[in-house]
């Protein structure tokens, strides 16, 4: 969406080494910083990373395809339950569990896509909500698989790659999650610039025109939903692996709504917006909502209104354009 970010994408392809390397280094440094700043709160940072995947997955369908959905957490939750059950059934290798989450997420994503991508506007929104709520009701009912309202507990994965045990301080969980996030993010950076990513952005602009250049819009959107589902599934898998519990909150409407809020505040349609938005949002939430959850709701509501009115593209693209305007005056490179 943002001119600058889009341009950044294009410029990078001419650099001697790809910008993905920059992203990799930046994220690794930020991760290290998180490790040093919050050494006693690694569990929180790890949970945060799980949600970052959910926001990134929503960006793929909402930011890149223009599908307004309030049911994304269903995909995340289904994957988390699948991983939990796989682990309880004896599949304890974390990497294999990630695979389980990805597949479960992709399948659930495709199913959501079939229902949600068929229409636009209100029916689309309502179908996305209904799918989410249906999954939530089922999660509550099928307590033999989900643990019902008590949650699915006792998930204890084995060591990563057979070497690194999950420790009490959450160091392994944090590093494992961070590494997966960096890898997935770098892949996604390339993915959204691909011909398929470009087609999705075109569909978002004008889906009839996309048909008029020969694109099969509905199947493409379902496919994007599947990919988005795989990303959400990784998030669900990491959450299940790291916390050892999967609760009904993973499939809740509130989770879906909060994901959309994070995405839009950060900046839908750019991966950096989704990433930075969801990280900053959650750190902010962690402190404010710990102090008073209802003040947090008021602040969040006001923040949303302000963003919608004054920074409809989100805060990250806004920050980028502000920096763009100020940087030349400071003599920085433009």
């Amino acid at each position, binding site marked *: *969406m943002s*001119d600058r970010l*889009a341009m950044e*994408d*294009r410029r990078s*392809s*001419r650099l001697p080494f790809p910008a993905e390397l920059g992203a990799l280094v930046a994220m690794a440094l930020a991760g290290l910083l998180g490790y040093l700043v919050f050494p006693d709160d690694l569990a929180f940072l790890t949970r945060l990373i799980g949600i970052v995947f959910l926001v990134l997955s929503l960006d793929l369908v909402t930011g890149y395809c223009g599908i307004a959905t309030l049911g994304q957490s269903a995909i995340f939750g289904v994957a988390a339950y699948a991983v939990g059950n796989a682990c309880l059934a004896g599949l304890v290798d974390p990497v294999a569990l990630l695979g389980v989450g990805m597949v479960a997420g992709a399948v659930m994503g495709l199913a959501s896509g079939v229902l949600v991508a068929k229409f636009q506007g209100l029916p689309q929104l309502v179908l996305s909500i209904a799918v989410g709520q249906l999954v939530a009701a089922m999660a509550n009912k099928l307590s033999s698989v989900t643990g019902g309202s008590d949650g699915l507990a006792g998930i204890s994965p084995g060591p990563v790659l057979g070497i690194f045990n999950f420790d009490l301080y959450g160091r392994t969980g944090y590093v494992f999650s961070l590494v997966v996030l960096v890898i997935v993010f770098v*892949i996604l950076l*390339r*993915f959204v*610039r*691909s*011909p*398929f990513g*470009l*087609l999705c*952005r*075109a569909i*978002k*602009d*004008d889906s*009839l*025109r*996309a*048909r*008029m*250049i*020969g*694109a*099969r819009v509905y199947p*493409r959107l379902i496919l994007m939903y599947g*990919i988005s589902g795989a990303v959400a599934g990784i998030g669900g898998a990491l959450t299940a692996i790291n916390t050892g519990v999967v609760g009904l909150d993973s499939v809740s409407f509130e989770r879906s709504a909060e994901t959309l809020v994070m995405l839009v505040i950060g900046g839908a349609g750019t991966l950096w917006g989704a990433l930075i938005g969801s990280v900053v949002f959650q750190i902010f939430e962690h402190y404010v909502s710990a102090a008073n959850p209802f003040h947090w709701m008021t602040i969040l509501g006001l923040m949303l209104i302000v963003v919608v009115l004054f920074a409809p593209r989100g805060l990250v693209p806004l920050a980028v354009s502000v920096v763009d305007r100020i940087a030349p005056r400071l003599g920085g490179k433009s």
Partner: protein
Amino acid sequence: MTAPLLELRDVCKSFGGIRVNDGVSFVVREGDRIALIGPNGAGKTTLVNVISGGLDVSQGSILLGGHDITDFSIPQRVDAGLIRTFQITRLFTNLTVAENVALAVMQKKGITRKFFSSWIDRPNIRDQWMQILGLLGIAHLAAARVSQLAYGQQRLLDLALGLALEPKVLILDEPAAGVPSDESGRIIEAIDRLPPKIAVMMIEHDMDLVFKFAKRVLVLANGRLIFEGDPSAVTHDSEVRRAYLGTYADGRHTS
């Protein structure tokens, strides 16, 4: 002689009880330059929508290269080489000019299912979209966003999208309408320079442009084809005169 590129056989289209196209039949051959004209409300735009697949026919059939495409979806017709542009430009406004055309190029090549890394600057893709933009004289705008373009430039880009899809039949819906006269010259020039093999059918009101462009003229009035023939003969045809003047006499404007 081989089968004509595009053939309409007795095509009818009704909305409710009103016949907007009534038994329209004609053929389009390789390299044709056809103008489709007619008074307001004659059903020209409906006919274009029926041909391009935006509307279903009520009766009759449409053939492309001898194959019946009446039941084809919009994308299937595009794949088969039947391309249209729009009276009111529809472009991907949040993409750049280059991205718009490159997307069409890649769609035609079937590589929009590639999931990894940008293809826009790969030599074989880049050459194609650069060449098309060059042909239309808008190569210098490649990096611009569509929303930054002047209206005439947007019409050229619409045409560029059509060309990128390697049309066999290209239907231009009033390509110069609403464009300031200093820019419309560029569009007419671009249409002149279209590859000669492509069959081009243009809907147009501007008779100067029609005479300049068309080798054959089709006249649609009240949904029926009332004239088909040489541009020089059209103004002398009594039925055409009646159709144009008659609608004004009765004041039966339907659009």
